[in-house]
């Protein structure tokens, strides 16, 4: 069946009668996400300056294999092909990367900003053909809940990193003391913001209670559902804050390790 469109308002990229700066929001998203992708890719390829004292950059944690004292299973494997670039970040960054890539909030944001699908509400699009998320390749976005499971584990690892960031080694005596440095606060803020983001996930909301219609009979689920829903209402805010802060945490550890910044001990 054909459905005629209103002749008064033919489609076409950017066509709209909106007089406001509708392009501003997608432009900010485009800039923000591009800046993060460029920085995180650069940082992941470095393979050095990702730890300093008890701190480890969240881009490199958990460090499964690597040269730092934070490594779980020893150094880089000897069989790693010499022509293949190596960085401990390559082994793990797919997980938070995939989690954000398939996040419902980011999906909506980057479809608009990167793919102009639509560029903004009630603004014409560049392409006629449209498949949506019901067919390949975007049907793969449905894998999001599996990335969530991994992201929840990462939250535990990053919380453990904050615990480790509370214990400083005296370089003279070799003794370990409890302490708090600015880096400890940076990493603690990072895990708090990532927690706000991850625990407000739509898939988690569904998992803990959203899939049930009789939550009144399940008090634990009901409480969990209310807590996740509460964070879920601020999901966009936490998505941006945690994105910025995880990048800043890497930068902080990197610059301390390079000797550019000094990590002040609070006590």
């Amino acid at each position: 069946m054909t459905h005629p469109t209103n002749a008064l308002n033919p489609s076409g990229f950017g066509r709209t009668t909106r007089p406001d700066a509708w392009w501003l929001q997608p432009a900010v998203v485009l800039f923000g996400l591009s800046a993060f992708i460029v920085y995180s890719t650069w940082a992941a390829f470095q393979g050095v300056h990702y730890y300093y004292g008890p701190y480890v950059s969240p881009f490199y944690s958990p460090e499964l294999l690597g040269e730092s004292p934070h490594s779980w299973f020893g150094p880089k494997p000897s069989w790693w092909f010499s022509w293949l670039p190596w960085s401990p970040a390559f082994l793990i960054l797919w997980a938070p990367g995939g989690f954000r890539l398939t996040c419902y909030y980011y999906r909506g944001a980057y479809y608009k900003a990167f793919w102009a699908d639509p560029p903004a509400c009630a603004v014409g699009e560049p392409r006629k053909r449209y498949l949506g998320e019901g067919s390949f390749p975007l049907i793969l976005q449905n894998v999001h809940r599996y990335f969530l499971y991994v992201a929840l584990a990462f939250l535990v690892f990053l919380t453990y990193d904050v615990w480790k960031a509370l214990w400083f080694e005296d370089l003279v005596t070799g003794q370990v003391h409890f302490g708090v440095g600015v880096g400890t606060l940076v990493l603690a803020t990072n895990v708090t913001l990532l927690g706000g983001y991850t625990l407000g996930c739509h898939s988690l909301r569904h998992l803990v209670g959203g899939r049930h219609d009789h939550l009144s009979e399940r008090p634990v689920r009901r409480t969990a559902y209310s807590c996740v829903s509460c964070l879920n209402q601020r999901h966009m805010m936490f998505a941006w804050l945690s994105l910025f802060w995880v990048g800043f945490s890497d930068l902080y550890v990197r610059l301390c390790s390079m000797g550019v910044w000094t990590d002040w001990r609070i006590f």
Partner: protein
Amino acid sequence: MAQAIFRIWRGDSGGGEFRDYATEVTSGMVVLDVVRQIQAEQAHDLALRWNCKAGKCGSCSAEVNGMPKLMCMSRTSDLPLEKPVTVQPMKAFPLIKDLVTDVSWNYRVKKKIKPFRPRKPDEKDGTWRMAQSDVDRSMEFRKCIECFLCQDVCHVLREHRLLDEFIGPRFLVHIAALEMHPLDTENRLEDLRKEHGIGYCNITKCCTKVCPEDITITDNAIIPLKERVVDVSYDPIRRFLARYRRKASAVGLAS
């Protein structure tokens, strides 16, 4: 009091044009007041649809400065009156005349949705018992006034014209109200994926942005439905668990 130019679409399905009307705007006026004033003073044949003037009947839907809005809830004090204000009919639906469109496609879509099917009554007198907190969840969706502004702004319908493949946000909200209702026993998840085309929604949230009833359409209705569809159609572990539970309960029944 201020002079303003209202640029209103005049025409029918055969064609038309924007015409400028200079008019007085006084404090407290909404766009519907201005358009009716223009109709009374300058354009007696201007067609528009309205009824309650209180944002409750959903009939004065149009596009004000390019955004789908209820004319009766659009304050002129929120508009930049130094520039012409455009008022045009909803783009997604066939035009009848001036600001009036034919929204009957929506009524045909609604008929395709499986209706409410409550479980057997809980009491002998034919009544049910439900917890208020369980019904609260779908209450938000019942605020819908069927203004179809969300259908108008949704790019799947507006730009890509997939009216045969996708039922649009209004009816995803309707299905969410039914699916999440504690008494309902119907299963619409297979229909949602196939006939209703929920996969076409790319969660860009324009529907949520324009809803005059502030229904959180994307986050509270569409995404939870998408997650339910993932459970039954895409998630291998959930599908396995569901099959296992079915088998276990069948064995339990048999023993």
